[in-house]
C-alpha cells in the first residue's frame, strides 16, 4: 500500500482541493448533540471529531426516496428515470461505514446489479477518517474496526497531520495531482500511527469478538430477554433508518392527479413495521412486535458470506438513536452470557 502524509496546516487546503473532484459532502455539527453529512461550501465547518451522523452515508447511494420510473398511463409505459450523476466526494467516513458500504455493494451489485446504485457508487469518491470509539461503538467485536479496501484515501490522525493510505486508482490520482499537499511518511509518523491504533484498541468497551454470536442467538430465540426488550420497543424504525447496512425498501406506483402520468418510487422501509412481513391474503410472517424485534437481531447478526463479516458493523447507531433506550450491544452481550455491569 502507498502511504503519504498531509501536514496539519495543509488539511483545509486539501479539503478545498477535493472540491475539484466533485461535490464535497462531510460531517458538520447541526445541533448541540447531533452531526449530519451535508454539502460543504466552507471547509471550516467540517467536524473532524464527529462520532456518528444522524443519517448514514447510504443516503448518497440509496436515497430515502427516489423515482425509478416515470409512468405514462395512456401508453402503458414505464420509462426509466436515470438522471446524470455528478461526481461527488464523501469526506470523513469511519471504518465501519466503509465496510457497511461494501456490504451494500454485495447486495446491490450481485448478479442482478442495481443500475441506480451502481451509477452513484461509480461517481463517489470515499475519503476515510480514523476515529476513537465511544461507549456505543463495538466495531472491534465485529472485526470492522480497520478497513483494507473500499476507500480511495484513508486518513489516520497524527499529532501534526494525517497519515493517508491510498486505496484505489482514484486515490493515487488525487495524490499525484496535488504534490504540494502530500509529503513522505517519516519514522515518527509511523510511531504515532502505531500509538494511535494501540490507544484506540484500549478504548473499546468490550474486548474479544462476536464470531459465535449467530449460533448463540439462534439457540436463544425463545429467551425471555426478547419478550422484555421487545416490550420496550416503540416500533418506530429509527434503528433501521440509522443503520448503515439496512437496505430494505418498498416500491409504490403513484398516479398524478389527472391520471395520465405517474411515477414508480422506492423509499426506505423497515422490518420493524407491521406491513413488512405481510403477504397477499393477510398472512403476516412477522405478526408480533417480538417477531419483528427479533428479526432485526437475526438479520444483523447473520453472516454476509462475500465479506466474511456479519451484516452489523458495530457502529452503535441503533442504540444511540433509539428513543426507548434499547441497547443492542448490551442485549447481545447478555445473550452471549456476559454479565453487563452498569457504571
Amino acid at each position, binding site marked *: 500500500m502507498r502511504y503519504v502524509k498531509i501536514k496539519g496546516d495543509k488539511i483545509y487546503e486539501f479539503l478545498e482541493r477535493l472540491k475539484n473532484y466533485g461535490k464535497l459532502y462531510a460531517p458538520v455539527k447541526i445541533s448541540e448533540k447531533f452531526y449530519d453529512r451535508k454539502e460543504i461550501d466552507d471547509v471550516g465547518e467540517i467536524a473532524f471529531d464527529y462520532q456518528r451522523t444522524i443519517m448514514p452515508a447510504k443516503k448518497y447511494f440509496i436515497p430515502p426516496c427516489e423515482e425509478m420510473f416515470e409512468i405514462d*398511463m395512456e401508453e402503458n409505459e414505464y420509462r426509466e428515470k436515470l438522471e446524470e450523476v455528478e461526481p461527488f466526494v464523501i469526506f470523513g467516513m469511519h471504518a465501519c461505514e466503509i465496510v457497511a458500504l461494501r456490504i451494500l455493494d454485495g447486495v446491490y451489485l450481485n448478479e442482478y446489479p442495481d*443500475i441506480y446504485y451502481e451509477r452513484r457508487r461509480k461517481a463517489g469518491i470515499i475519503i476515510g477518517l480514523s476515529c476513537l470509539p465511544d461507549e456505543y461503538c463495538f466495531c472491534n467485536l465485529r472485526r470492522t474496526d480497520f478497513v483494507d479496501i473500499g476507500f480511495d484515501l484513508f486518513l489516520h490522525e497524527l499529532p501534526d497531520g494525517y497519515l493517508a493510505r491510498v486505496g484505489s486508482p482514484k486515490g493515487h490520482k488525487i495524490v499525484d495531482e496535488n504534490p504540494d499537499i502530500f509529503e513522505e511518511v517519516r519514522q515518527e509518523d509511523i510511531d504515532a500511527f502505531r500509538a494511535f491504533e494501540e490507544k484506540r484498541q484500549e478504548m473499546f468497551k468490550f474486548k474479544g469478538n462476536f464470531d459465535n454470536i449467530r449460533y448463540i442467538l439462534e439457540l436463544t430465540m425463545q429467551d425471555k430477554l426478547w419478550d422484555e426488550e421487545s416490550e420496550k420497543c416503540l416500533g418506530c424504525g429509527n434503528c433501521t433508518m440509522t443503520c448503515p447496512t439496512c437496505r*430494505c425498501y*418498498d*416500491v409504490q406506483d403513484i398516479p398524478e392527479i389527472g391520471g395520465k402520468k405517474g411515477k414508480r418510487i422506492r423509499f426506505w422501509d423497515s422490518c420493524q413495521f407491521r406491513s413488512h412481513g405481510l403477504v397477499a391474503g393477510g398472512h403476516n410472517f412477522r405478526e408480533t412486535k417480538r417477531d419483528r424485534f427479533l428479526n432485526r437481531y437475526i438479520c444483523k447478526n*447473520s453472516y454476509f458470506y462475500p465479506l466474511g463479516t456479519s451484516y452489523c458493523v458495530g457502529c452503535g447507531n441503533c442504540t444511540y438513536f433509539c428513543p426507548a433506550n434499547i441497547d443492542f450491544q448490551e442485549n447481545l452481550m447478555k445473550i452471549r452470557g456476559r454479565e453487563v455491569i452498569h457504571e
Partner: protein
Amino acid sequence: MNNMNNMNNVYSLYKCRVLRVYDLTEEEKLFLFRFEDAEIAETWTFTPGQFVQLTITGLGEVPISICSSPMRRGFFELCIKKAGRVTDKIHELQPGDVVGVRGPYGNGFPVQEFEEKDLLLIACGIGMAPLRSVFMYAIDNRWKFGNITVINSAKTGKRLLFRKELEAMRDVAEAENIRIIQTITRDPDWPGRVGRAQEHIKYANTSPENAYVCVCGPPQAYHDIFTKLIENGYNPRNIYVTLERRMKCGVGKCGHCIAGSSTFLKYICIDGPVFGYYDIISTPGLI
C-alpha cells in the same frame, strides 16, 4: 415498455398481452400471456418453480409463480388469486389488455436432478399453481421421468384448482403411469376422495426410495406432510418445497422476502423460492 429503457436495468418491464382468461374458481383465474416483442416471446424461458413480477400500469407490481410448462415457447400462464389491490385489478383483465412483466426470478425446482426418478407432487390450495408448472413440464418430457403422482387438495370442491383439467386427463394419465388424486377436506357434498393431502400419500404410484417430492401449500401444512412422507419411506433429501413472500424487487435487494435465522439468512427471491427439506427444518422462520 419495450426498448424504452436501458437493457441493464433489472427493474425494466416488458409488455405482455393477455391472450386468454379462464375462470378456475370463484377466487382464481388463469391468464395466458404473450410478450409483445416477438423475439422475447420466442426466446424467453424459465424453470418450473420460478416467478415473474407483474405490473398493472399505475397500480403496482406483484410476484406470481409461473404455472405453465417452459417447453411451450411463445406464451406463459399465470394462475392468480384475487387477494389484494393489484390482483383485484388483474382479475378485471380481458384478452387484448397489456401488462408489464419482468423475470423470471428465483431458483426453480431442480428438474434435471429429477430425471429418471419418480415424481410426487403435493399441493394444498393455491400451491397447485407452481406445481402445475412441474407437472406440465414432466408431461412434456414424459420419457425422462418414472411414475408420477399429483395430489391436489383444497377445502371444498369449488375451490379445487385445475379441477376440470386434471379430471379430464385422469383416465388417460393412469394408462401412462400418471396418477391424479384430488382430495377435499371440508365439503360434505364432494363425491370423491376426502381428507388432507398427506393422508393420500400412501395411494401414490411412486416408489418412496426412488422418488423426488415437491410440496407447496400454506406454512402450517408442511410439518404434517413431512412427517407422513417420512413415515411412508420417502427420503428427506429428496423433498423440496416452494415458499411465498411479498417480494418487491425479485432480485435480492428490497429485503421483504428475507427469512430464516442468523445462521441461514436467505432472500427467498434469489436463494429460493425452492428450498430443500433440511434447509426448512434447520431454519426457524423459513415457513
